[in-house]
């Protein structure tokens, strides 16, 4: 499952010793500290952390919305602090936000998806193709001429993803894009994200506080208090219960149950997915 075959050795985004704090007058609030990470082309990276742990700050640093106080972020070799390259960076690192309603600018879906390419000055025929392709990927083609107002949260968020895809980014960052959705909407978005990564080879950075969304990741970074406290493949990260607890995160249900069973003396290995748990429970005598 966590075969890193898709992930290459080429870094799309590099953060090198990045620190950033918010300042307003006297008041300084810590954003993130000493972040080192590389996002590899084609990988599915998950950044986990509770509220206020600095995930959004990190995301904004990765697409150039914020510029590091110290350290350096490069996107495909371009330093994000280069003022002349702002839009280049932004179009390469697409960002999907939390509230789907607040990301749409037009009252007709196809016009909303076309907004990004229009801003980039893409020729009309090309925009048409991109809109078609983007809506196709997120499975919303039939709503093309419709209004976003009547859609479900999951559908709106899929449109928001399509709107970013139409700019042909190299990386898509989703900043808690499932947090406001119901379980069905969350599932829709997770399926879309996995399809994007697995079938289209898109590099995806998913930011979340739900651990079960991290199960399918190639790599996980766990954040707490503005720092990366652990990282690695899901199995390694999940197994380190102490540091997860310190970061205020809760293991997925399957893991918790497998641990409890093992504690009670059953021969159940540590599981991270429901299927794994079901398998090992079935194998019990």
């Amino acid at each position, binding site marked *: 499952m966590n075969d890193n075959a898709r992930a290459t050795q080429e870094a799309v985004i590099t953060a090198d010793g990045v620190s950033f704090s918010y300042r307003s007058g006297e008041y300084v609030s810590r954003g993130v500290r000493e972040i080192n990470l590389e996002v590899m082309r084609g990988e599915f990276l998950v950044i986990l952390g509770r509220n206020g742990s600095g995930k959004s700050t990190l995301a904004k640093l990765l697409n150039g919305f914020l510029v590091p106080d110290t350290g350096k972020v490069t996107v495909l070799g371009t330093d994000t602090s280069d003022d002349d390259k702002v*839009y280049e960076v932004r179009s390469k690192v697409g960002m999907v936000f939390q509230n789907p309603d607040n990301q749409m600018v037009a009252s007709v879906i196809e016009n909303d998806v076309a907004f990004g390419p229009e801003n980039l*000055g893409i020729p009309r025929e090309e925009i048409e193709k991109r809109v078609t392709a983007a809506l196709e990927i997120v499975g919303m083609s039939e709503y093309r001429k419709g209004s976003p107002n009547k859609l479900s949260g999951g559908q709106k968020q899929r449109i928001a993803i399509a709107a970013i895809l139409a700019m042909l980014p190299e990386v898509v960052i989703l900043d808690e894009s499932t947090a406001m959705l119901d379980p069905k909407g969350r599932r829709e978005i997770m399926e879309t994200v996995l399809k994007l990564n697995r079938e289209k080879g898109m590099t995806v950075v998913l930011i979340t506080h739900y651990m079960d969304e991290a199960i399918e990741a190639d790599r996980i970074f766990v954040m707490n208090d503005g720092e990366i406290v652990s990282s690695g493949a899901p199995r390694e990260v999940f197994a380190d219960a102490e540091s997860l607890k310190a970061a205020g995160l809760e293991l997925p249900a399957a893991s918790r149950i497998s641990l409890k069973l093992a504690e009670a003396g059953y021969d159940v290995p540590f599981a991270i997915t429901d299927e794994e748990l079901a398998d090992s429970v079935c194998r019990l005598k």
Partner: protein
Amino acid sequence: MKDVTLGQYYPGESFTHKMDARAKLVLVIAFIVMVFLAKNFLSYIAVMLCVIGAVLVSRIPVSKMLKSIKAIIMILIFTGLLNLMFYNGETVYWSWWRFNVSLEGIIFSVKMVLRLVLLVMGTTLLTFTTTPTGITDGMESLMTPLKYIKVPVHDIAVIMSIALRFIPILSEEVDKIMMAQKARGASFDTGGLVSRAKALLPILIPLFVSAFRRADELAMALDARCYNATPNRTRYQVMKFGWRDLLGALGTAAFVVLVVALNNNFWGAYRAVESVWWLFAV
């Protein structure tokens, strides 16, 4: 609150839907001028025929049109009554204190109400048959000359588009907040004017807080979509004048001429038919 028909597009494939947004905008302005030109009942009938024709061509259900009238029913009643009571006519039927109901008053208030109804119908026809994006794109295109005097035409268009997009969202939000406050025991329809106004405060404050939060996220989303990346922005929606626009323009022009002609009694030509002559007088 849910009945915000204004600014609600009614999807369709009719003649009017397929017209160029710019043409429709210009024609609506021509229509408004036409409504204000109309003087006697015959010219009002001509304007009505124009509206009926336009509704038929656009295939908007009559019930949908009536809904837009229902939205302003209070304004209509108010206008009608005020004009009826205060018009200083000669043929007085009924009089009390300062109120006079006269023949001229009746005619005048019927005309006023008719005028409002026609205005609303004509303009909602535009919003029913044109997407908000179409309207803002059309306005932007019509305002292009203003670019030369440094008016930020495109920014204005984006602001309008966002405003139209958020009207239903915010009105839904008002509903939710009202419900939440009612659940806490608030009441919005009892007490005097002052206490009612005060009762609105617990709605307005959360609404503003949420609107500002939304604005913040929206600003970021605009940046994420590379808003203002290049001055050479392209257009997804192509606008092209076609035969429909020409036909629409000719039709509207014909009605304007008809209205002016009826206003002026066809310059005396109809004087010949004595039995209909009185119609020109009202």
